[in-house]
């Protein structure tokens, strides 16, 4: 969040963008012409590298991106693959390993929001994929490095509900030395489990 002056200077110098269009095996490539998307994007301003990649999230996939970052001095990365809700943390870690700010990354969602939902329209899907990557490229160009802050944390846990799940969670936490507040709305813990006679599959008592 606090802008680091050195990196700002870097950004102003020039934007060096790498674009990786993930095939996700065939999950994306079956519908979207990834090669074509990568080719069309390569002509965009500030894009130094634009290529397809079989599994961006895999170790070799990340390796390839990191190697490119070092070799070509890339400072912004677009990964066009699956939902950022799935792999944004993965690629942010990759950015860190390549000594880039993890927030200089943008993902285009070519799987959940393109190839999987337009399976019958490969041409339209390819056109959409290209659009989505273009949007990501224009966005990544404007991204700013951000920095996490560290704040103190209270080493205590509130467990809401004193049934078998809540009791187990409370005991495991407490046995590990953490203080637990176990809140139960009725007059006793035990929950529904306490009402059961025997329990399957071992036919032992519940309490």
């Amino acid at each position, binding site marked *: 969040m606090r802008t680091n002056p050195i990196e700002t200077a870097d950004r102003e110098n020039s934007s060096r963008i790498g674009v990786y269009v993930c095939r996700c095996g065939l999950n994306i490539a079956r519908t979207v012409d990834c090669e074509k998307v990568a080719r069309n994007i390569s002509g965009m301003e500030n894009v130094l590298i634009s290529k397809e990649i079989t599994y961006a999230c895999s170790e070799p996939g990340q390796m390839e991106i990191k190697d490119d970052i070092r070799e070509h001095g890339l400072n912004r990365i677009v990964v066009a693959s699956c*939902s950022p809700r799935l792999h944004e943390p993965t690629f942010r870690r990759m950015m860190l390993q390549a000594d880039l700010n993890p927030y200089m990354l943008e993902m285009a969602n070519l799987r959940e929001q393109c190839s999987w*939902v337009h399976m019958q329209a490969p041409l339209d899907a390819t056109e*959409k994929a290209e*659009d989505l990557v273009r949007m990501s490229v224009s966005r990544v160009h404007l991204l700013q490095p951000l920095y996490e*802050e560290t704040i103190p944390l209270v080493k205590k846990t509130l467990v809401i509900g004193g049934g078998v799940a809540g009791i187990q969670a*409370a005991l495991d936490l407490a046995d590990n030395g953490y203080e637990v507040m176990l809140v*139960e709305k009725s*007059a006793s813990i035990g929950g529904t489990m306490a009402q059961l006679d025997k329990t399957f599959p071992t036919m032992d008592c519940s309490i």
Partner: protein
Amino acid sequence: MADAGRHPKITLYTMSEVAGVSGYVGNFNVKIVKRSRFVDEKACTSCGECAKVCPVVFPDEFNMGLSSRKAVYIPFPQAVPSAYVINMNECMGRGCSKCLDACDKKCIHFHMSDEEIQIKVGSIVVATGLDPYDPREMDEYGYTRFENVITSLELERLINAGGPTRGELIRPKDRKHPQSIGFIQCVGSRSKRKGGQYCSNICCMNTVKNSLVLKEHDPDMEIMVFYTDIRAFGKGFEDLYTRSRSQGVQYVRGLPGSVEEMSDGSMRVAVENTATGCIEFHDLDMLVLSIGMKPSSGTRKLQEMLGLQLTSDGFFLEAHPKLQPVDSATRGIFYAGCAEGPKDIKESVTQGSASAARAIRLMHKGVVTTEPITSEIIEEHCKSCGKCAEVCPYNAITVDVKKKTPAVVNSAACAGCGTCAAECVFNAIVMNHFTDDQILSQVDTLLAQKAEEKILTFACNWCSYAGADFAGVSRLQYPANVRLIRTMCSGRVDEKFIWHAFENGAPVVLVSGCHIGDCHYIDANHWTEKRIARVRKKMEKKGIRPERLQLAWISAAEGVRFARVMTEMEALRRTVTREEIQETIALLNSRENHENAEL
């Protein structure tokens, strides 16, 4: 249970409910309301002298009303804490006071009042469990009309050695030992009409288990199970099912169509056996409804309080169904047990341990790193109007309106919804990682070519973007001209983004977010709703069809709804002609200058 009660690191708050939660990961402030027990739980030795003299008799909830208890009672003998409790709505109060005299330890206090407790915690485990399905709405099986139709939970108490009959199975109407008994499966489960559409997971195995317990009670008892499918998928389950069948329990594939009571109190069940295709009639002494489970009644309230998401079934929604099965989408909050979905004891225990491990993973370092996606004030632009402070759901912004000092953001409290930046008319707030420039550049690129064909959709990260992902995972097909722009919250969607889109040739714009009440940022989407209404009114005034701007609430679980809304948007887009778009562009370009002059 007892271990949890005496563990030095565990503080037990029974008869308590969470009344409010504020703060953020690592630093949650929790308000607990502890209802009065009217008995000092530390001093009480559970001798039971008080209950002996209590003149008031009520049905015993623990035994499903099959036995009685007094107004002062212990829920069950092994209760933790081992202490009596008075239900003051039932107690005759000071006029009676018999229990006060009977208690040697003097631990009964009529004047005790509810307590409010404030605690600070770093993480929260939501383990609110389930409510058994109430079969009264499903009256075709006669639960409300016939005494000899009982629920599976009532049967549990009837065959329990600690239950009201000390484990002797009798049927309620005439207290006779039943010679035959029928189980009806899927009561309140897997039904589109009543109860839940989901499988409750435990009822099949619970019936298999009970059939074996009953055979232990009486090997000659005739037991029939009416089922849709028997789901015996877990470890050791199939063995148990095989054992049940080998002991003569009959499994009939088909749910009864009707249940009648015969003169001798037995139940006549008419059922189509779908294995043979024949209609069968069976006379059974007693019927047990294998009831499913519902989300616990407090789920909704807690969900709103903690800003969590629910599935369409009403259970809590996990952050990822496979990779983060006990994490909520809110950092520092975890799920365990049936709160997240129906499950058996083993799975509940597994999740309990898993959620503890996840909480420890978060807490062991003693510090937490905050996401830097927060808002910042540009002091020289700030006019100290106070709007940002008014809209912030976290009270993270302070402004002294009288002294006219610029607003200040507490970045630790800011959750990054961006509502403040969207509402600030002076462009004095930068929402990091979702700045005006960044979002407008996406809009520009999207509309650079074939703008008239595009459906521009703003989607919030937690609900509608996740709903779009869910549509993808479900392979639901929808028009390919939809383009999503992700924001953390729909509250971030600034009025100017919408105008900018129309001005650059967008035929339609959709703003989508969490349902009202489900907003990940407490109530930021209220501001979205107001803002969209405001923009639509302005559009109308300017002579632009307000329908071209749509607002839709789509939850993370509503993939089907997402796809449907997109199809509707496409139908709407087709009504917008090139001429109409050109007209709007011309209109906004001329008005824009006019408006800028006004500012």
